[in-house]
């Protein structure tokens, strides 16, 4: 059994307002194996983004970690100093954000922004780093990488900007890529291209991915294992196929029923979509049951 790359154990995050601490994440635990694509899916406010920010060490006040461990290659990220965390971030753990326009610096060319990664994390000189940046752009299949490296973010389309983000994130060959709604702002055909790119590049390099999305379709088409979050809890976790084929938790069942499925109207006629509140009597009880399926036995251990 390989050791997990990321092992989040009983992570609690609270928001301190006045003298009261409000729980935001309630003991979230999950593991990501090296090279695995793991998806966290949930509706707004379920805590999926807070989870990713906690892993990156980017929680802002009033949010703070109130308990638990985040083990990355066996090392607890919560114990690291800010300086050590900075060295890790962007180098071993990288992140792609939802809005590529706000995540890129508008005053600097994209080539320079990618080159910065090599200078900061690998100690390269600027000249060499600029050359590597062009290679990085080529690797995310940006046409004319030479010319594009001299572009400012506003000169690029949304899809290209997101490719730049991916090039930056993968520049140092991280072990873990966190993708927080990476395609939400994009058109469907561009979204399909960007998802394929992330999938292929990570598979090639053996990068593990923590994929965060509210879109069940995106998660199903990219991840091997999925966790469903509701109100700060991981209520169900399973292999993708099993989770979508045989959802165990009533919230997951409600979510899947609420989704209009492509092709279902031609097969079964127009069915009323499931109103999640009509099948769930009491939302406050949803987090009392959790279904976490054991990982498929690998080397004898569950």
């Amino acid at each position, binding site marked *: 059994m390989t050791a997990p790359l990321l092992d989040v154990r009983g992570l609690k995050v609270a928001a301190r307002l006045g003298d009261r601490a409000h729980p935001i994440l309630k003991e979230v635990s999950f593991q990501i194996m090296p090279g695995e694509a793991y998806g966290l899916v949930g*509706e*707004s406010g379920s805590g999926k983004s807070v989870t990713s920010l906690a892993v990156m060490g980017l929680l802002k006040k009033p949010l703070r970690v109130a308990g638990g461990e985040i083990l990355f290659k066996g090392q607890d990220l919560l114990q690291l100093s800010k300086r050590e965390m900075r060295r890790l971030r962007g180098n071993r753990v990288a992140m792609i954000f939802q809005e590529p326009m706000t995540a890129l610096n508008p005053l600097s060319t994209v080539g320079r922004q990618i080159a910065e990664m090599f200078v900061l994390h690998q100690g390269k000189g600027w000249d060499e780093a600029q050359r590597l940046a062009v290679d990085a752009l080529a690797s995310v299949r940006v046409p004319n990488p030479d010319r594009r490296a001299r572009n400012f973010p506003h000169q690029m*389309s949304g899809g290209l900007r997101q490719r730049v983000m991916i090039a930056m994130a993968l520049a140092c060959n991280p072990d873990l890529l966190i993708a927080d709604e990476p395609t939400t702002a994009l*058109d*469907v*055909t*561009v*979204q*399909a291209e960007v*998802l394929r790119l992330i999938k292929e590049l990570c598979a090639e390099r053996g990068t593990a991915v923590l994929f965060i999305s*509210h*879109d*069940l*379709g*995106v998660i*199903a*088409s990219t991840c091997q294992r999925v966790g469903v979050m509701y109100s700060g809890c991981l209520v169900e976790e399973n292999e*993708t*196929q099993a989770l*979508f*084929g045989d959802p165990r938790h009533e919230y997951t069942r*409600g*979510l*899947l*029923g*609420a*989704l*209009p*499925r*492509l*092709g*279902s*109207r*031609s*097969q079964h006629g*127009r069915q*009323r*979509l*499931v*109103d*999640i*509140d009509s099948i769930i009597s009491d939302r406050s009880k949803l987090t009392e049951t959790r279904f976490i399926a054991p990982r498929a036995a690998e080397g004898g251990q569950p």
Partner: protein
Amino acid sequence: MTAPLLQVDDLHVRFPIAGGGLLGGRRTLYAVNGISFDLAKGECLSIVGESGCGKSTTALSILGLQEATEGSIRYRGQPFSGAGGPGRMQRARAVQMVFQDPYASLNPRQTVRTSLSAPLRLHGIKSASEISDRIEAMLADVGLTPEQADRYPHEFSGGQRQRIGIARALILEPEIVVLDEPVSALDVSIRAQIINLLLDLQEKRGLSYLMISHDLSVVEHMSDRVLVMFAGQVVEEGGWRQIFETPAHPYTRRLIAAIPDPDVALRRSERSERSADLPMLDGRAFVADGSVAPDVFVRPAPSELVEFAPGHKVRLAAAH
């Protein structure tokens, strides 16, 4: 067969844009290039396409918020655009719009009652009791309670605000409602509730919907007919079955193939790989398969929308 409620005939919208450079002349942006369609009573017609394809501009023209450069829009056989068209007041009673973002489309300083009573008052209803009755009936129809009428938008959740947006659009009892991405800002569970509500209201009131969306699974679920737009033109038009079961145009197929759908991703249901037979193609090319971004500053090459099966049309390059 009754006359269609709304007829759009060869609609063009062009925007003059200041050209590049200091001495650059004016350039023309070709936003909508010859769109024609009919909307029947009680029908849901969807326009799908990606950002910049002209679907919102088309909708704005119908609402009278964007002047058409060429072409005509008729409502119940009467001109509905340009100089001969109706004024704002008459238009408001015929067509209303539900916006994408329920947060931005309500006035934060007005209670729901104020928002809903203003159109009634403007349209000549003076009696306070009638106004209040109509508001209460409207709120009940969209699944809100009369007590909620005196609250402000910030006191509601996203789904509830979209219900208010729908109530605001329907309070004048229009026949046509333009739905501009009505559920794309909402969470999955709320989205299902709003879709169900829209379908119920359509059935109950015999509404005609013109829905603009990029979410093809929602479009398949709700529409009777679908227009696929690319670069300001309709590239394919047909009933929902024709578009989703036997798509003909390569762009339509690309759009459908690009949808991340759990069933397809997991191969639990095979997506139909069939595409329509095109006997009349004889060497004529499809216009724009969507693999290259269009140049919006160039007048599109001549082409025609060819009907190859009843109601199913596809755009081909002009015959030589």
